[in-house]
């Protein structure tokens, strides 16, 4: 199976759900509407041509500061390439954030059977920062969703135990949101330094 068929499989089965897609060096990404996440995820897991039995990662991105400041000077002066080499053609490039929504939840799936990968990107607005939980399909999603709740404040419907996982329960706010002050500390003991 060629990699390009993964996007086609998902887009062919759920034409209404797919917002966008792109490919980078054979790694495919599909941007989805939030309300279709659970159906697409079940399809990815159970379809014999896909069999995504391994949820490798689940995280989120806060795009609220995206593009508002230039790339750090370190990268420009270090000689490290910040954009892909033009010598290798990029036929289906990334066109920026999937939508105007503030957050995007990112899922990385891998099929141990077929040895292929697919990334799902689900943009969600801050006002309704809630998605369906994938714990009913992949038990390993439980802790990853707790981490996304802890760091970004995105809720997951149907999660059995949506508590903070890294920070303590007295902590207020979600530290990886771009509007969390970078120096703000909430110590349990000792001075606020």
């Amino acid at each position, binding site marked *: 199976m060629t990699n390009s068929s993964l996007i086609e499989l998902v887009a062919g089965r759920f034409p209404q759900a797919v917002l966008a897609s792109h490919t980078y060096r054979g790694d495919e990404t599909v941007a989805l509407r939030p309300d279709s996440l659970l159906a697409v995820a079940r399809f990815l897991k159970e379809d014999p041509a896909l069999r995504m039995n391994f949820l490798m990662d689940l995280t989120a991105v806060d795009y609220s500061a995206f593009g508002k400041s230039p790339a750090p000077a370190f990268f420009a002066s270090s000689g490290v390439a910040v954009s892909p080499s033009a010598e290798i053609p990029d036929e289906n490039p990334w066109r920026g954030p999937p939508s105007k929504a503030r957050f995007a939840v990112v899922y990385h799936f891998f099929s141990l059977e077929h040895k292929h990968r697919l990334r799902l990107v689900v943009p969600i607005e801050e006002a309704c920062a809630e998605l369906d939980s994938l714990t009913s399909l992949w038990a390993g999603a439980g802790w990853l969703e707790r981490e996304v709740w802890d760091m970004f404040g995105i809720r997951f419907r149907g999660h059995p135990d949506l508590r903070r996982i890294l920070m303590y329960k007295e902590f207020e706010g979600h530290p990886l949101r771009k509007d969390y002050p970078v120096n703000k*500390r909430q110590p349990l*003991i000792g001075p606020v330094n």
Partner: protein
Amino acid sequence: MADLLSDSFLTSRLDAALGWARKFSIFQYPFVTACCGMEYMATACSHYDVDRFGAGLPRFSPRQADVLFVVGTISHKMAPVLKRIHDQMAEPKWVVAFGVCTCTGGFYDNYATVMGIDTIMPVDVYIPGCPPRPEMVLDGLMKLQNKIQDQHTHGRRPAPEARPAGFDV
């Protein structure tokens, strides 16, 4: 009369002997949380051999330990645990901040990290470095030995110094 006796020959010799005995029988509690632990192990093992300084036996109970080695980054979530370990140690006790994260927070300046363990407990010896070389650890250990040798006359250790005003980060 008490003033005359306080510096008498016999008392000072006894205290010196006590300090000498204490500084060569350091039972350490290694509170290892991060990568500095590797350097701590390198120092403790036979190549550098911390046992030459009488500090070869780590005790994994704070009630049996004299020196608390805080080795590695301390997060705000971990801080109450560390404070409790320190409170459980019997006097006389000393604290060594091992590595720059425990000294000042190091390069971490964020929501999670304690900016130096001296904000929550008194510290006797700071060993900076990321991580410190074993030679620096041994130097710090010898400085601690000097402190133990000299401190006996003061009895209980004094309260930690207050941080200077306007120190807010």
